[in-house]
Protein backbone atom coordinates (compact mmCIF):
# COMPACT_ATOMS: atom_id res chain seq x y z
CA UNK A 1 0.00 0.00 0.00
CA UNK A 2 1.48 3.37 -0.93
CA UNK A 3 2.25 5.87 1.81
CA UNK A 4 -0.46 8.50 1.43
CA UNK A 5 1.19 10.97 3.82
CA UNK A 6 1.80 14.02 1.70
CA UNK A 7 4.28 16.84 2.14
CA UNK A 8 1.34 19.10 2.94
CA UNK A 9 0.16 16.80 5.68
CA UNK A 10 3.65 16.52 7.10
CA UNK A 11 4.02 20.31 7.08
CA UNK A 12 0.71 20.80 8.81
CA UNK A 13 1.52 18.13 11.40
CA UNK A 14 4.72 20.00 12.24
CA UNK A 15 2.73 23.22 12.42
CA UNK A 16 0.21 21.56 14.72
CA UNK A 17 2.97 20.35 17.01
CA UNK A 18 4.58 23.83 17.14
CA UNK A 19 1.23 25.48 17.88
CA UNK A 20 0.49 23.01 20.67
CA UNK A 21 3.88 23.57 22.24
CA UNK A 22 3.76 27.35 21.82
CA UNK A 23 0.28 27.57 23.28
CA UNK A 24 1.12 25.39 26.27
CA UNK A 25 4.11 27.61 27.06
CA UNK A 26 2.07 30.75 26.71
CA UNK A 27 -0.96 29.49 28.60
CA UNK A 28 0.02 27.22 31.47
CA UNK A 29 -2.61 26.61 34.11
CA UNK A 30 -2.71 29.71 36.32
CA UNK A 31 -2.76 29.69 40.11
CA UNK A 32 -6.33 30.97 39.96
CA UNK A 33 -7.37 28.05 37.74
CA UNK A 34 -5.59 25.58 40.00
CA UNK A 35 -7.42 27.11 42.94
CA UNK A 36 -10.72 26.70 41.14
CA UNK A 37 -10.01 23.03 40.51
CA UNK A 38 -9.04 22.40 44.13
CA UNK A 39 -12.06 24.39 45.30
CA UNK A 40 -14.41 22.34 43.10
CA UNK A 41 -12.99 19.09 44.50
CA UNK A 42 -13.30 20.26 48.09
CA UNK A 43 -16.83 21.56 47.60
CA UNK A 44 -17.93 18.28 46.06
CA UNK A 45 -16.29 16.32 48.88
CA UNK A 46 -18.18 18.40 51.45
CA UNK A 47 -21.46 17.84 49.58
CA UNK A 48 -20.85 14.11 49.34
CA UNK A 49 -19.72 13.74 52.95
CA UNK A 50 -23.27 13.99 54.29
CA UNK A 51 -24.68 11.48 51.82
CA UNK A 52 -25.12 7.77 52.47
CA UNK A 53 -23.40 5.38 49.98
CA UNK A 54 -26.80 4.77 48.35
CA UNK A 55 -27.46 8.50 47.99
CA UNK A 56 -23.97 9.00 46.59
CA UNK A 57 -24.58 6.26 44.02
CA UNK A 58 -27.89 7.83 43.02
CA UNK A 59 -26.32 11.28 42.75
CA UNK A 60 -23.50 9.97 40.58
CA UNK A 61 -25.98 8.15 38.37
CA UNK A 62 -28.13 11.27 38.04
CA UNK A 63 -25.11 13.37 37.07
CA UNK A 64 -24.01 10.77 34.56
CA UNK A 65 -27.47 10.67 32.94
CA UNK A 66 -27.50 14.45 32.79
CA UNK A 67 -24.12 14.45 31.05
CA UNK A 68 -25.30 11.84 28.56
CA UNK A 69 -28.45 13.82 27.84
CA UNK A 70 -26.44 16.99 27.26
CA UNK A 71 -24.06 15.16 24.95
CA UNK A 72 -26.93 13.70 22.97
CA UNK A 73 -28.62 17.09 22.57
CA UNK A 74 -25.33 18.56 21.49
CA UNK A 75 -24.80 15.77 18.96
CA UNK A 76 -28.28 16.26 17.50
CA UNK A 77 -27.65 19.99 17.12
CA UNK A 78 -24.38 19.33 15.32
CA UNK A 79 -26.08 16.87 12.98
CA UNK A 80 -28.76 19.43 12.15
CA UNK A 81 -26.15 22.13 11.54
CA UNK A 82 -24.12 19.83 9.33
CA UNK A 83 -27.23 18.88 7.31
CA UNK A 84 -27.90 22.61 6.88
CA UNK A 85 -24.35 23.18 5.61
CA UNK A 86 -24.69 20.32 3.14
CA UNK A 87 -27.69 21.92 1.43
Amino acid at each position, binding site marked *: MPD*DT*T*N*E*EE*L*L*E*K*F*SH*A*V*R*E*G*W*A*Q*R*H*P*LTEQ*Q*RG*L*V*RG*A*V*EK*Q*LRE*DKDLSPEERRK*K*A*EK*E*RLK*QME*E*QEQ*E*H*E*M*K*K*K*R*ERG*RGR
Partner: protein
Amino acid sequence: MDSLTDLICRYQETRDPADAEKIIETIGPDLSRYIRSRIAPNSAKRDAWEDAFQETLVAIVRGLPSFHIGNADTFLSYCYAIARNKVADQFRGTKTEMNTFVDPELLREALAGLKDKTMSAESWADLNAAIALLKKNDPPCLEYLWNRYFVGLSFALLGEEYGITEDAATKRVRRCLSLARGLTED
Protein backbone atom coordinates in the same frame (compact mmCIF):
# COMPACT_ATOMS: atom_id res chain seq x y z
CA MET B 1 4.24 9.41 33.92
CA ASP B 2 0.70 8.35 34.69
CA SER B 3 -1.65 7.97 31.77
CA LEU B 4 -4.80 10.03 31.74
CA THR B 5 -7.01 7.02 32.41
CA ASP B 6 -4.80 5.94 35.33
CA LEU B 7 -5.11 9.41 36.81
CA ILE B 8 -8.89 9.41 36.47
CA CYS B 9 -9.20 5.96 38.06
CA ARG B 10 -6.95 7.04 40.91
CA TYR B 11 -8.88 10.24 41.41
CA GLN B 12 -12.15 8.31 41.54
CA GLU B 13 -10.70 6.21 44.36
CA THR B 14 -8.88 8.88 46.34
CA ARG B 15 -10.62 12.16 45.41
CA ASP B 16 -7.24 13.78 45.97
CA PRO B 17 -7.26 17.41 44.68
CA ALA B 18 -3.65 16.94 43.48
CA ASP B 19 -4.83 14.21 41.07
CA ALA B 20 -7.64 16.44 39.78
CA GLU B 21 -5.04 19.15 39.16
CA LYS B 22 -2.83 16.70 37.24
CA ILE B 23 -5.77 15.69 35.04
CA ILE B 24 -6.56 19.32 34.30
CA GLU B 25 -2.88 20.07 33.64
CA THR B 26 -2.86 17.30 31.03
CA ILE B 27 -5.92 18.44 29.11
CA GLY B 28 -6.04 22.15 30.01
CA PRO B 29 -3.85 23.76 27.33
CA ASP B 30 -5.58 21.95 24.45
CA LEU B 31 -9.00 22.78 25.85
CA SER B 32 -8.11 26.42 26.38
CA ARG B 33 -6.87 26.66 22.79
CA TYR B 34 -10.11 25.11 21.57
CA ILE B 35 -12.22 27.52 23.60
CA ARG B 36 -10.12 30.53 22.64
CA SER B 37 -10.43 29.52 18.98
CA ARG B 38 -14.22 29.72 19.31
CA ILE B 39 -14.40 32.95 21.28
CA ALA B 40 -12.43 35.90 19.96
CA PRO B 41 -11.57 38.35 22.79
CA ASN B 42 -13.90 41.01 21.37
CA SER B 43 -16.65 38.69 20.12
CA ALA B 44 -18.88 38.31 23.15
CA LYS B 45 -17.97 39.98 26.39
CA ARG B 46 -14.55 40.76 27.75
CA ASP B 47 -12.72 37.71 29.07
CA ALA B 48 -15.55 35.49 27.81
CA TRP B 49 -13.17 32.77 26.69
CA GLU B 50 -11.46 32.69 30.07
CA ASP B 51 -14.84 32.46 31.80
CA ALA B 52 -15.87 29.60 29.50
CA PHE B 53 -12.56 27.84 30.15
CA GLN B 54 -12.87 28.11 33.92
CA GLU B 55 -16.48 26.93 33.85
CA THR B 56 -15.38 23.98 31.70
CA LEU B 57 -12.67 23.04 34.21
CA VAL B 58 -15.10 23.11 37.12
CA ALA B 59 -17.72 21.06 35.21
CA ILE B 60 -15.10 18.46 34.24
CA VAL B 61 -13.87 18.17 37.82
CA ARG B 62 -17.42 17.79 39.15
CA GLY B 63 -18.13 15.09 36.59
CA LEU B 64 -14.97 13.11 37.34
CA PRO B 65 -16.31 10.94 40.20
CA SER B 66 -19.24 9.69 38.12
CA PHE B 67 -17.47 9.46 34.79
CA HIS B 68 -17.54 5.91 33.38
CA ILE B 69 -14.01 5.66 32.18
CA GLY B 70 -13.50 3.72 28.98
CA ASN B 71 -10.34 5.13 27.46
CA ALA B 72 -8.65 8.51 27.09
CA ASP B 73 -10.60 9.22 23.89
CA THR B 74 -14.00 8.87 25.55
CA PHE B 75 -12.84 11.18 28.31
CA LEU B 76 -11.56 13.77 25.85
CA SER B 77 -14.79 13.55 23.90
CA TYR B 78 -16.66 14.22 27.15
CA CYS B 79 -14.40 17.20 28.00
CA TYR B 80 -14.82 18.79 24.57
CA ALA B 81 -18.60 18.32 24.75
CA ILE B 82 -18.57 20.26 28.02
CA ALA B 83 -16.35 22.93 26.46
CA ARG B 84 -18.71 23.25 23.48
CA ASN B 85 -21.66 23.76 25.84
CA LYS B 86 -19.80 26.37 27.88
CA VAL B 87 -18.79 28.21 24.70
CA ALA B 88 -22.40 28.13 23.49
CA ASP B 89 -23.49 29.54 26.88
CA GLN B 90 -21.28 32.59 26.28
CA PHE B 91 -23.07 33.33 23.02
CA ARG B 92 -26.61 32.71 24.25
CA GLY B 93 -28.62 35.90 24.11
CA THR B 94 -26.01 37.71 22.01
CA LYS B 95 -26.10 38.35 18.29
CA THR B 96 -22.46 37.43 17.88
CA GLU B 97 -21.58 34.11 16.32
CA MET B 98 -18.82 31.89 17.50
CA ASN B 99 -15.55 31.72 15.63
CA THR B 100 -14.92 28.68 13.52
CA PHE B 101 -12.29 30.07 11.21
CA VAL B 102 -8.68 31.20 11.10
CA ASP B 103 -8.03 33.99 13.53
CA PRO B 104 -4.71 35.73 12.73
CA GLU B 105 -4.53 37.23 16.21
CA LEU B 106 -4.86 33.79 17.73
CA LEU B 107 -2.21 32.42 15.42
CA ARG B 108 0.20 35.15 16.54
CA GLU B 109 -0.63 34.43 20.16
CA ALA B 110 -0.03 30.71 19.79
CA LEU B 111 3.28 31.14 18.02
CA ALA B 112 4.47 33.85 20.39
CA GLY B 113 5.09 31.07 22.91
CA LEU B 114 7.78 29.75 20.60
CA LYS B 115 9.57 33.07 20.23
CA ASP B 116 12.16 32.47 22.89
CA LYS B 117 12.69 28.91 21.87
CA THR B 118 15.60 28.17 19.61
CA MET B 119 14.15 26.83 16.42
CA SER B 120 16.16 26.02 13.36
CA ALA B 121 15.72 28.16 10.27
CA GLU B 122 14.34 25.08 8.56
CA SER B 123 11.64 24.63 11.23
CA TRP B 124 10.61 28.27 10.94
CA ALA B 125 10.49 27.94 7.18
CA ASP B 126 8.26 24.87 7.55
CA LEU B 127 6.02 26.75 9.93
CA ASN B 128 5.66 29.67 7.56
CA ALA B 129 5.02 27.33 4.66
CA ALA B 130 2.27 25.61 6.66
CA ILE B 131 0.64 28.95 7.50
CA ALA B 132 0.82 30.03 3.85
CA LEU B 133 -0.70 26.70 2.85
CA LEU B 134 -3.57 27.11 5.32
CA LYS B 135 -4.30 30.62 4.08
CA LYS B 136 -4.54 29.46 0.49
CA ASN B 137 -7.57 27.33 1.26
CA ASP B 138 -11.15 28.50 1.04
CA PRO B 139 -14.00 27.52 3.36
CA PRO B 140 -15.04 24.87 4.21
CA CYS B 141 -11.57 23.33 3.75
CA LEU B 142 -9.89 26.14 5.60
CA GLU B 143 -12.17 25.46 8.55
CA TYR B 144 -11.51 21.70 8.58
CA LEU B 145 -7.75 22.15 8.29
CA TRP B 146 -7.73 24.90 10.90
CA ASN B 147 -9.67 22.75 13.36
CA ARG B 148 -7.49 19.75 12.69
CA TYR B 149 -4.07 21.36 12.66
CA PHE B 150 -4.39 24.54 14.68
CA VAL B 151 -7.09 23.70 17.20
CA GLY B 152 -5.59 20.21 17.29
CA LEU B 153 -8.78 18.16 17.16
CA SER B 154 -8.33 14.46 16.53
CA PHE B 155 -10.38 13.00 13.67
CA ALA B 156 -12.83 11.59 16.23
CA LEU B 157 -13.28 15.00 17.89
CA LEU B 158 -13.52 16.68 14.51
CA GLY B 159 -16.32 14.28 13.65
CA GLU B 160 -18.13 15.17 16.84
CA GLU B 161 -17.67 18.85 16.10
CA TYR B 162 -19.49 18.47 12.80
CA GLY B 163 -21.90 15.66 13.73
CA ILE B 164 -20.26 13.20 11.34
CA THR B 165 -18.36 9.95 11.84
CA GLU B 166 -14.64 9.82 12.50
CA ASP B 167 -14.19 8.12 9.16
CA ALA B 168 -16.07 10.87 7.33
CA ALA B 169 -14.02 13.52 9.14
CA THR B 170 -10.80 11.76 8.11
CA LYS B 171 -11.95 11.62 4.49
CA ARG B 172 -12.86 15.31 4.48
CA VAL B 173 -9.48 16.35 5.82
CA ARG B 174 -7.74 14.09 3.28
CA ARG B 175 -9.81 15.61 0.49
CA CYS B 176 -8.91 19.09 1.69
CA LEU B 177 -5.23 18.14 1.82
CA SER B 178 -5.44 16.89 -1.70
CA LEU B 179 -7.08 20.18 -2.78
CA ALA B 180 -4.35 22.05 -0.91
CA ARG B 181 -1.75 20.11 -2.87
CA GLY B 182 -3.43 21.33 -6.05
CA LEU B 183 -3.23 24.89 -4.76
CA THR B 184 0.50 24.65 -4.08
CA GLU B 185 1.12 23.20 -7.52
CA ASP B 186 -0.66 26.14 -9.20
